[in-house]
């Protein structure tokens, strides 16, 4: 088989699986197999924002007053987020678009990746504002061993899936010689790679990002670096949407609502997935040690951040109907919720639809037995 950017086979997208069915031809949104992805796209579009809308000029003064260990925490944290969003800004498109089979899911993937590029742009906006030589901060990323280690763990599943799907799209199933190595390409193993990649992305967006969010908001709780926190709050709002996207894909697969192979793979990979969550939590704990190596900051230290990591890992696993792996506790950073609740992202009324409503407050069915209007006369 060979990949075509416009598959000319007439197909019914309502009967296609999410991935590895017929490639999408007409981008049509009049019908959806999984309406959730259409809703996610609409929501993401309604969230559109630009970093320049946020004033970060006061952050430069604040940054100058931070202690050296706090500067290390702030900059390292931003550098890590730059890495994560650099990966996420391109990889959903490269890895998932060539194999997606539903137009609404294709559109969601593109919208999702685009919003990640806004996040990347916002880091440049912040760094330009707070340091005199922004280039040095960016150059340092590729030279920091702790960050490069994370890069490997977040990109390895993507890389493997991309390599195998490219071989499949060029040569089809079978044994192929690539770079002097034999790759055995079969559909089941491709689907397995896809499942693990989506899981790895879910872990990236649901756990790894939240370590950084906690640090950014800890500064703002002290009324410093508030411009940065406003931007991170918008990023957190987007990321919550993205993690819902991957959670939804994984739950559809596991519940057998998509491709029967995927349901079998989900069961088969359960132990591996639990290990992925454990590994990610441990890697992020190591990162917490690195962040706080020169000392902690008011309101946050390595120990509390590690407790939060265990708490958030349990929450994310429950969302995928998996048993939590750490002891179940209440949130060790309860103040974080104030920053993560969407309610608290302020929007001007003219910029948004007011959609608050009273549940069960309106009853459209009135019959003679309704006593509320029995005294009412015209």
């Amino acid at each position, binding site marked *: 088989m060979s990949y075509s950017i416009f598959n000319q086979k007439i197909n019914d997208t309502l009967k296609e699986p999410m991935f590895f069915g017929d490639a999408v031809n007409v981008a049509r949104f009049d019908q959806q197999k999984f309406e959730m992805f259409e809703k*996610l796209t609409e929501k993401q579009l309604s969230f559109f924002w630009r970093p320049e809308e946020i004033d970060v000029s006061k952050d430069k003064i604040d940054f100058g007053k931070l202690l050296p260990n706090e500067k290390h925490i702030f900059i390292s944290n931003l550098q890590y987020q730059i890495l994560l969003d650099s990966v996420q800004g391109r990889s959903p498109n490269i890895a998932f678009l060539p194999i997606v089979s539903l137009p609404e899911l294709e559109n969601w993937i593109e919208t999702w990746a685009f919003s990640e590029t806004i996040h990347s742009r916002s880091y440049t906006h912040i760094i330009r504002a707070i340091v005199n030589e922004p280039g040095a901060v960016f150059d340092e990323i590729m030279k920091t061993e702790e960050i490069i280690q994370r890069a490997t763990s977040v990109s390895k599943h993507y890389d493997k899936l991309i390599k195998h799907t490219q071989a499949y799209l060029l040569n089809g199933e079978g044994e192929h010689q690539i770079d002097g190595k034999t790759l055995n390409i079969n559909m089941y193993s491709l689907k397995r790679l896809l499942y693990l990649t989506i899981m790895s992305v879910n872990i990236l967006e649901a756990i790894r990002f939240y370590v950084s969010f906690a640090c950014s908001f800890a500064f703002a709780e002290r009324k410093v670096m508030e411009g940065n926190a406003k931007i991170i709050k918008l990023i957190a*709002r987007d990321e919550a949407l993205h993690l819902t996207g991957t959670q939804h894909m994984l739950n559809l697969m596991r519940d057998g609502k998509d491709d029967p192979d995927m349901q079998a793979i989900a069961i088969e990979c359960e132990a591996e997935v639990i290990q992925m969550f454990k590994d990610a939590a441990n890697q992020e704990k190591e990162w917490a040690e690195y962040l706080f190596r020169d000392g902690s900051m008011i309101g946050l230290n390595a120990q509390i951040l590690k407790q939060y990591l265990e708490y958030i890992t349990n929450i994310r696993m429950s*969302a995928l109907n998996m048993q939590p792996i750490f002891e179940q506790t*209440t949130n060790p950073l*309860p103040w974080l919720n104030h920053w993560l609740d969407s309610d608290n992202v302020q929007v001007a009324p003219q910029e948004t639809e007011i*959609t608050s*409503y009273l549940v*069960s407050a309106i009853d459209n069915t009135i019959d003679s037995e309704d006593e509320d209007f029995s005294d009412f006369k015209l």
Partner: protein
Amino acid sequence: MFKIDVDNINGKTESLYVYGEDSILTELEANNVLVNHSCRQGHCGSCILKLVKGDVVHQECLVPLSQGEILACQSRPVSDIKITTKI
């Protein structure tokens, strides 16, 4: 103030008294009632609860809800309410 009657959520049955300014999820967390949640933004549907009695203000959400279901992260009480886990 409003009363939230928690009816067997994660093993807890108790009454909370709240101002109705924060989401039900936030109030439950503040009172150490563990409840499933994930996005806190009305997208994922992890925090669906059953509203047995009373009224809430509910913000928009992406999750299809059946009658009597609410998302704890997107609703605030506007009267005394009773909530329980989704059956």
